[in-house]
């Protein structure tokens, strides 16, 4: 019998979706039976109390959690988030119920023995409840007490070679797609870059000194499987600057509806969509209309291609990404709170990805941005808000990037132009004598 009656939570289980309530009830039962003989270091009934306090919050229409605090591991200013219940008498099992963020491996590649080791630690020293994964990408371990935090950190670092992730005013745990480890569309090795920057910026990850959170995310191609353009302050999206490679024979196989050449690599095979129509499904959907198919030959005006990936996704056996590959850097994406949600704005259209010089071209952009944001950013101001406040032009100045047509989202609406002295021939000084020759006093 459950420790707390939860009629409101029970209702959440009645829908057609998988329910976190069912998962938590299952976990509460596992802990109560303890068939594995775990030596629990936090209250055995923590999950039951968690269900109880959630039920109470539904009943009252207000939260019974307080968040924030001084909990953490020695030397780190992130990775642990204090959570306290404001009804500790009724729910002692969750009086302290801190969250720990653990850095996920690049590309979220796991081995089963790793996951077993992680859950073994967490079943013993925490609630056993995880969130795989949090919105930023970390492994989230939900619910432990203050004395267990250093113990968990010791076991993670010493036995699993595993670090905590970022929280607070830190660089948050960088997240990436599978990249060239599995994907033929990858324009750069996102796993390698993510791993390098994670190691390179350990201080920024663990010792908070930013005005607010800062997120990196890495998409190895413009398909954007980790949606870096929307989810990170600084987004690294793979691209190429030469021509899309075309196999004309394969294009014609798609046009001829050859069964070995299914559109979208067969991803939509479950339904009869009718015969493949290159005009309708590829050329007509090209956002810049830069393609044509004549006399059994596909032509692409690459100068007008915006690398939307649609044609390549639709005919993957016929079209390939170019060979001159790198990445684009976009900045300023964020969720709402101030100024509403923003997508990333293109800062650097093409940047070399070169591990041999420690990604110098990329780190110099990052550090210029950080210097500006740390100096000028207000408390709790995201990079995207600073760009809105001081202007995109200011950011181009601090990063030393020349304005380019790709920076223009839409034609200028402000008729006033403020020239700087070095932008004007001759500067502000003028030869008055010469001037008076043509203009009387």
């Amino acid at each position: 019998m459950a420790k707390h009656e939860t009629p409101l939570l029970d209702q959440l289980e009645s829908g057609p979706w998988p329910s976190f309530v069912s998962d938590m009830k299952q976990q509460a039962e596992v802990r109560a039976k303890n068939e594995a003989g775990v030596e629990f270091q936090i209250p055995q009934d923590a999950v039951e109390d968690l269900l109880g306090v959630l039920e109470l919050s539904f009943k009252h229409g207000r939260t019974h959690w307080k968040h924030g605090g001084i909990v953490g591991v020695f030397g780190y200013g992130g990775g642990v988030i204090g959570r306290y219940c404001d009804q500790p008498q009724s729910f002692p099992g969750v009086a302290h119920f801190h969250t720990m963020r653990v850095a996920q491996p690049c590309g979220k590649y796991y081995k089963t023995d790793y996951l077993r080791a992680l859950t073994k630690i967490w079943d013993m020293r925490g609630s056993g409840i995880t969130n795989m994964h949090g919105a930023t990408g970390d492994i989230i371990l939900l619910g432990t007490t203050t004395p267990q935090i250093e113990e968990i950190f010791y076991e993670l670092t010493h036995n699993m070679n595993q670090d905590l992730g970022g929280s607070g005013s830190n660089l948050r745990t960088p997240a990436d797609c599978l990249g060239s480890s599995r994907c033929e569309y990858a324009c750069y090795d996102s796993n390698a870059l993510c791993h390098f920057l994670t190691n390179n910026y350990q201080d920024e990850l663990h010792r908070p000194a930013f005005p607010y959170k800062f997120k990196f995310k890495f998409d190895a191609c413009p398909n954007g499987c980790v949606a870096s353009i929307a989810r990170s302050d600084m987004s690294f999206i793979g691209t190429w600057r030469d021509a899309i490679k075309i196999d004309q024979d394969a294009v014609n196989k798609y046009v001829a509806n050859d069964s070995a050449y299914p559109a979208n690599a067969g991803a939509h095979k479950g339904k009869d969509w009718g015969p493949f129509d290159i005009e309708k499904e590829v050329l007509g959907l090209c956002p810049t209309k830069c393609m044509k198919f004549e006399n059994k030959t596909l032509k692409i005006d690459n100068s007008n291609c915006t690398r939307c990936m649609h044609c390549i996704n639709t005919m993957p056996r016929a079209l390939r990404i170019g060979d001159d590959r790198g990445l684009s850097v976009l900045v300023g994406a964020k969720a709402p709170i101030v100024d509403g949600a923003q997508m990333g704005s293109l800062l650097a259209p093409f940047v070399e990805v070169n591990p041999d010089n420690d990604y110098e071209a990329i780190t110099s952009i990052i550090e210029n941005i950080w210097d500006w944001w740390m100096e000028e950013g207000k408390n709790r101001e995201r990079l995207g808000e600073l760009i809105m406040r001081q202007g995109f032009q200011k950011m181009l100045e601090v990063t030393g990037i020349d304005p380019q047509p790709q920076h223009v989202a839409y034609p200028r609406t402000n008729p006033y132009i403020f020239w700087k002295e070095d932008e004007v021939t001759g500067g502000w000084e003028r030869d008055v004598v010469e001037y008076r020759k043509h203009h009387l006093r």
Partner: protein
Amino acid sequence: MSELLANKEAATQAVVDFMTKKSKTKSKFYFNDFQDIFPDDKLREIKKVVNLLVTDGVLEYWSSGSTTMYGLKGGGKQHGSEGEA
């Protein structure tokens, strides 16, 4: 790096004095508040010294989960009395 920031003892005392002076009104400080103490230094330099003070137990972090602040160790609300008067 300024002379004040380079001298660890003096820097520590300046930080403690600054925070103590303001302790009647607030016990937690944003990182960029340290710029008032070390106006001639770059924030990255200040960060190294301030984080050493945390390691030495002079300061402690306070984190809401999204934002991190700094306070004198043991000052202000502690987790044992979180939310109490």
